[in-house]
């Protein structure tokens, strides 16, 4: 209910702003909606959204898997932490644009380059979060597992993973928002389709309704994925915690 209300306020503000500022700079909601419908009819909207979502999914999975594994290793093994730390600091502070441009130069304007560039941008934050999580692992529970001779895999699944879950969720949450942002830049610079590409085209043609149409649908998709996938997942993970008052 509250969400709906805040959404209505947003629409009203947009509409008023477009009336005040003029249609040329900020088209009204119905004008943008009609462009969305046109794009959907022609199928272009779905092709581009689909391409972007596929890139997000691939880059996100790649970065999360690799980042979690490296982070866990760096949290557990001192030597790995020492060796990896300078690389981590370098990657954390490397601008996304540099990674994307270099990836396109070295690997060509290919899908692999785009996805790798997006994944590399997200990787270090996942590593850092998981490393912190691994450092907070409860040694007392490890000892319990050792004393009861619980096999390694079962220990990992039932003892370690639940302790890392909040960190994985945090890495996923922050990582996803990072990927949403970077994927458009990567598409703008070197892919022939996707939301970022369309926004680039709209920018060059100064087609503001088209630009807004893609931005709004993209934002809507992100919002839906957040509420339908990410939030219920987080609730499920923390169901054993006593409810906060």
């Amino acid at each position, binding site marked *: 209910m509250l969400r709906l209300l805040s959404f209505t306020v947003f629409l009203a503000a947009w509409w008023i702003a477009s009336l005040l500022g003029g249609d040329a700079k900020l088209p009204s909601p119905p004008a943008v909606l009609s462009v969305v419908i046109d794009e959907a009819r022609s199928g272009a909207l779905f092709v581009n959204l689909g391409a972007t979502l596929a890139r997000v999914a691939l880059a996100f999975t790649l970065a999360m898997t690799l980042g979690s594994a490296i982070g866990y290793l760096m949290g557990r093994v001192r030597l790995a932490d020492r060796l990896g730390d300078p690389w981590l600091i370098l990657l954390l502070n490397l601008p996304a644009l540099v990674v994307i441009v270099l990836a396109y130069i070295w690997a060509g304007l290919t899908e692999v380059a785009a996805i790798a560039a997006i994944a590399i941008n997200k990787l270090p934050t996942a590593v850092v979060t998981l490393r912190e999580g691994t450092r907070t692992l409860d040694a007392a*529970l490890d000892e*319990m597992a050792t*004393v009861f*001779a619980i096999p390694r895999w*079962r220990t990992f699944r*039932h*003892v370690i993973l*639940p302790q890392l879950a909040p960190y994985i969720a945090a890495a996923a949450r922050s990582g996803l928002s990072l990927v949403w942002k970077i994927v458009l830049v990567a598409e703008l610079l070197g892919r022939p389709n996707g939301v970022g590409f369309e926004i680039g085209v709209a920018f060059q043609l100064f087609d503001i309704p088209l630009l807004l149409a893609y931005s709004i649908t993209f934002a809507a998709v992100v919002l839906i994925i957040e509420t339908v996938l990410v939030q219920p997942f987080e609730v499920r993970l923390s169901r054993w*915690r006593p409810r906060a008052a």
Partner: protein
Amino acid sequence: MQLEVDIAGKAFENAAGERHAVLAGVNFSLRAGEVGVLVGPSGCGKSTMLRILVGLDRDYQGHVSRPSGARLGMVFQEPRLLPWRSVEDNVRLAAPLVDEARLSALFDVLELNEHRGHFPGELSLGLARRVALARAYAVEPDFLILDEPLASLDDALVGRLRDQIALLVESRSMITLLVTHNLDDAVRLGDRLLLLSARPARIIADLQIRTPRGARGEAEFAAIKADIARLTNGDRAGRDAS
């Protein structure tokens, strides 16, 4: 089946680089079916010794031989349950082979049946201890270790839990080692009392209680406690003189 312990020494190095001796000669053996009790003042090194006995700490001088292939069951001082798993899952994780009949019999003895589906965060300390006890017992241990299982519980609860522990210990032939600083628990549950000195710990006496657990009366408890007091005071006097 027998546990042989011969720890010549164990020292810790603190942050400043000074070495502190924690154990200074602990030597005993325990047979299956025997309940050994390590009694000693708080901070004398009992927990350190337990860590050595279960193999968590290998940095010591001496030798410990556990029966080969012996299954270990342990009740830690703080229950060490997994907060994200239910009571039943906590037990089953440690003891994947336990069948439903045995599990519910065990939960019956410990009055845990109605708490099966609860998470440890919803349990009192007394209940959590009983879950830890259920877990240690469910693995059908050959060697059961109880580290201060009755500490910081109220008196009524201590009485009940002590009876439950006695029942479980009687119902299976295993080596049992109980660690406590409470003489009451020691004389009621133990067959052999191993008295430890203050840090660095060594064994100052090895008392055998021949009367079976069920047949011991108040008079006998008092007599044993008097014995213990004499032995521990003697130890203190001896050290003061030297």
